[in-house]
């Protein structure tokens, strides 16, 4: 599973992307966030304010209950500010 980070989420985590293999009990985005948060203080800081985080699964915006599977491309980022 490939995980991408953007903007200040990327800065806090410290990497732009990483390959991870969470255990089978990680079934959705909320579970993945909890599991990633334990990986490093940077991850913990990035996900500390869960309400400030948005996510995408395979390049589609997705909510906390969205399922995640091996092979997915998952992205975490702040609310978008384009235009």
């Amino acid at each position, binding site marked *: 599973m490939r995980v*991408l980070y*953007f*903007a*200040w989420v990327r800065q806090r985590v410290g990497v732009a992307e990483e390959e991870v293999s969470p255990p089978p009990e990680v079934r959705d985005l909320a579970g993945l966030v909890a599991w990633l948060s334990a990986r490093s203080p940077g991850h913990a800081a990035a996900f500390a304010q869960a309400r400030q985080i948005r996510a*995408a699964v395979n*390049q*589609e*915006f997705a909510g906390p209950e969205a399922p995640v599977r091996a092979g997915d491309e998952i*992205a975490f*980022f*702040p*609310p*978008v*500010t*384009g*235009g």
Partner: protein
Amino acid sequence: MPVSPTVRVQEAPFDPAAESAALTAGRVDVGGLASFVGLCRADDGLSALVLEHYPGMTERAITRIAEQACARWPLTGCTVIHRHGRLEPGAPIVLVLTASSHRAAALESCAFLIDWLKTGAPFWKREEFADGAERWVEAKAEDDLAAARWGGAP
């Protein structure tokens, strides 16, 4: 059948005149061409705006929004170009162009597109200031409201 929008995400500047010509040249069915260009302002001593985006998803998200505009209004053409990278004050950031037989369709779809680009395309703006400070632009609740007035998300 709705037209297919032209969507580009690029670092390079864009040319509104050339893009407008592409939507109207040789045609006699376009009654109105609406356009919007968003530019980088130098608020509060800002020296540059750095736009980060999500390659792949950005094009996909903008295309979906633009396709919805083409389905919702009777457009004869639609072009969206969004830049990323480092942009200095005065630099154009985004171009939205909509053409239709009817002026209201062109104007409304242009406003729809820029409202949704603000809230539905994965871009993040970092502000750089003359004193060396940096700051990520925070999403505005008013942008969500502006997009919401158009109904369901694309």
